[in-house]
């Protein structure tokens, strides 16, 4: 070495020359060297059993859950069980919370504010608007999530979910997606925002974007009640007596299946158009099975997923409740803002086989799908000038019976087409603002957030428009 002290630049130049003159890939040589050392150290430290274990639990379970005959049926059984427990189990607490927050506390608050002489305006905005809106979200959203997420998390902790991805990867690969999207989609059936967060498990950038953008086609927990109600009132009644329940259930499942098909179709299109050329790789580790720790799982999944998602939803529902109340109560030249907007939106709504009330409800209820139905009911009663229904202008309410619902919808001019298109539009419209917010946080890209928000909406417009035109053509002919 010369007497002159070398500098950083000399080192860099030296490294460059060495890289060039070696002509081999140092990276691979290094990786190889590290693994060689690791293997040697492991051989020295680990003693393996002489003969293979007589009963290898992991291998036995793996053979079963990925077997050609039992793999798929087991998966469906597991999924059906989770859904059954969620739906049946959520009914009771949902009714309890609803009775408490809406049936007991809401009237109490109203009485209290009346006794204090709070002005109508503030009382309505705060109690009928903001309180009621968020109470609704909590009542509809909380119980299913508190059941669905822990169940899902238990399966996750056991190690079963990666096997589901393994079984289903072929289908997703054909549409340019990743097998793990099966799980983010299932998570989306609970809540799309949680589904979007769950896409973190997909480590290939292109496949992750696809999973994020298409997650909205998984019919979320906030939209199931809409589907069930409309199907019961409009489609169930078409069936012969006694079959109504089954037919309407089939209709709802049909919409959910349609959502799955659209997920595949749009994944296929996305991977071959806008996302073409994005880097894509596949890796899926099947971890060893581990006994789940039930109590800790329940605790953390409630903290981790349920509370965070619920908190975000309530934060969005507060202003939405206020807006809904204002729209119903601020009058301009004799009509409320809501009625003006409904009249304005009606032509467009009719072209789509919907109506102004539904479009307005979807605009006002962007924060949470849970409040679409109460808002639709309130707006229908308002615009049809029905007396004695609901709790006053701008106050969301739920119907007492299916008969009352049918009566209300008839007054609003609803037809079977309106019902079918509402079910379609409920599946195909922009994600709720909580989900949009989450998509932005996960992708850090305004572009992909916009795509994720507008693509389903556009699709919804196209589908409802086409269905409406065909329907009218058939009906006229």
């Amino acid at each position, binding site marked *: 070495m010369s007497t002159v002290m070398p500098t950083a630049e000399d080192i860099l130049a030296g490294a460059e020359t060495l890289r060039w003159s070696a002509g*081999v890939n140092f990276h691979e040589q290094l990786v190889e060297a590290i*693994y060689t050392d690791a293997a040697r150290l492991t051989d020295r430290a680990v003693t393996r059993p002489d003969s293979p274990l007589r009963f290898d639990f992991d291998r036995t379970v793996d053979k079963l859950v990925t077997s050609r005959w039992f793999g798929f049926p087991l998966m469906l059984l597991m999924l059906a069980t989770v859904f059954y427990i969620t739906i049946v189990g959520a009914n009771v607490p949902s009714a309890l919370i609803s009775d408490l927050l809406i049936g007991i506390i809401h009237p109490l608050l109203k009485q209290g504010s009346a006794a204090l002489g709070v002005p109508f305006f503030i009382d309505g905005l705060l109690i009928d608007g903001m309180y009621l809106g968020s109470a609704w979200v909590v009542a509809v959203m909380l119980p299913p999530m508190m059941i669905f997420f822990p169940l899902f998390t238990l399966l996750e902790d056991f190690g079963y979910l990666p096997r589901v991805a393994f079984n289903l990867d072929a289908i997703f690969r054909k549409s340019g997606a990743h097998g793990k999207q099966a799980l983010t989609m299932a998570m989306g059936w609970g809540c799309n925002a949680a589904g979007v967060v769950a896409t973190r498990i997909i480590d290939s950038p292109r496949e992750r974007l696809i999973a994020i953008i298409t997650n909205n086609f998984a019919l979320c927990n906030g939209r199931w009640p809409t589907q069930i109600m409309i199907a019961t009132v409009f489609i169930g009644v078409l069936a012969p007596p006694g079959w109504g329940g089954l037919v309407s259930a089939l209709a709802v499942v049909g919409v959910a299946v349609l959502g799955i098909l659209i997920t595949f179709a749009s994944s296929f299109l996305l991977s071959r158009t806008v996302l073409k050329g994005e880097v894509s790789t*596949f*890796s899926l580790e099947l971890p060893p099975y581990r006994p789940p720790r039930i109590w800790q799982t329940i605790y953390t999944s409630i903290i981790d997923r349920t509370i965070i998602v619920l908190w975000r939803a309530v934060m969005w529902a507060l202003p939405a409740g206020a807006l809904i109340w204002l729209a119903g109560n601020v009058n301009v030249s004799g009509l409320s803002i809501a009625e003006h907007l409904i009249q304005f939106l009606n032509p467009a709504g009719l072209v789509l086989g919907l109506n102004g009330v539904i479009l307005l409800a979807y605009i006002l209820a962007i924060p949470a799908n849970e409040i679409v139905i109460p808002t639709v009911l309130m707006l229908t009663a308002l615009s049809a000038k029905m007396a004695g229904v609901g709790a006053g202008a701008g106050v969301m309410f739920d119907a007492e019976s299916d008969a009352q619902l049918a009566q209300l919808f008839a007054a609003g001019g609803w037809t079977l087409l309106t019902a079918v298109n509402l079910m379609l539009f409920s599946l195909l419209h922009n994600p709720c603002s909580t989900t949009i917010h989450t998509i932005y946080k996960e992708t850090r890209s305004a572009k992909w957030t916009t795509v994720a928000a507008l693509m389903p909406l556009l699709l919804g417009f196209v589908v409802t428009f086409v269905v409406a035109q065909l329907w009218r053509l058939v009906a006229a002919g």
Partner: protein
Amino acid sequence: MAQALLFILIGAGLLIGVLWAFRPGSGWYWRGKTQVEMTDRVRTEDAVKHVHLSNLRGLQPTLESLAGALQVTGNEAAAVAQSLTQFGLAELRDGQLHLQPRGVEAALHIIRVHRLWEQHLAEGTSVSDGEWHAQADRIEHQLSAQEADKLAAQMGNPLRDPHGDPIPSHAGSLRPQDGLPLSSVAVNQSYRIVHIEDEPVAIFSQIVASGLQPEMELRVLENSARRVRVWADGCEHVLAPLLAASVAVRPVEVQAQEVAQRPLSDLEPGQASRVVSISHACRGLERRRLLDLGLLPGTMVYAELRSPSGDPTAYRIRDTLIALRRTQAQWVRVE
């Protein structure tokens, strides 16, 4: 009412469309406008690149060769040469073009961006190899020196493009292409492919079709005036001497083994084998992922489970169960 609404919607749509088209910078209108200004610059840049690359091959470009490279008429080529002289990039002496220092600098920048972009497409995207050259030809006129540096830094400052061509350094020096033509090397020795000449295209595509890739290690089995036979990637490849002359190789220290190989995807559940190599056609993130999973020469791999839908298959690699798709398992060569 409905009609009025329709008009409003159509009007708003038109307005948005017009604004979109005139959106500063990237709107259609501006793009069309810059396109016209671009062509002159593009031609000049293509011209210096042509001159420099010809020089590197030991040729002295003329107006005719320039016209051929730019696919223009002789008169237009003369006009381009004129503007090269005007900008002080090159000069025309005895019908031959000679680059000035500024011209060399410009040419190296263009070549740097071109080869960096090809490397980026190969390593960081899933764009197929047939599209690399055409895309890089477009991008080479669009990136600044800083953007090129950033791109290089992201990729870990690659030395060569996916064809094995050296990438000019940030400081603007281009290392000479090294290596011996495969047609001239000794039999029974092992070599590594350092470069495959990508022009003329007809020869290049034949070499690529034969399955040879830069970085592959090979062993020469026969080298005669009739044909060159080599063992690489687990099978024998036969090339005409003309093709072999376009492949540059360097001797390696460790001798490549002549072992029969098959892709990992051939393993049925219950079978096991030892990894020989990962094909060099597998690049970028995909390659690093497989290496990180521990798929290295000598590693034992056990095929354990096959998905009920036929693909992927789970392999036990270093005590971990990893599912690989068939397309991935094909990259991995096993005994």
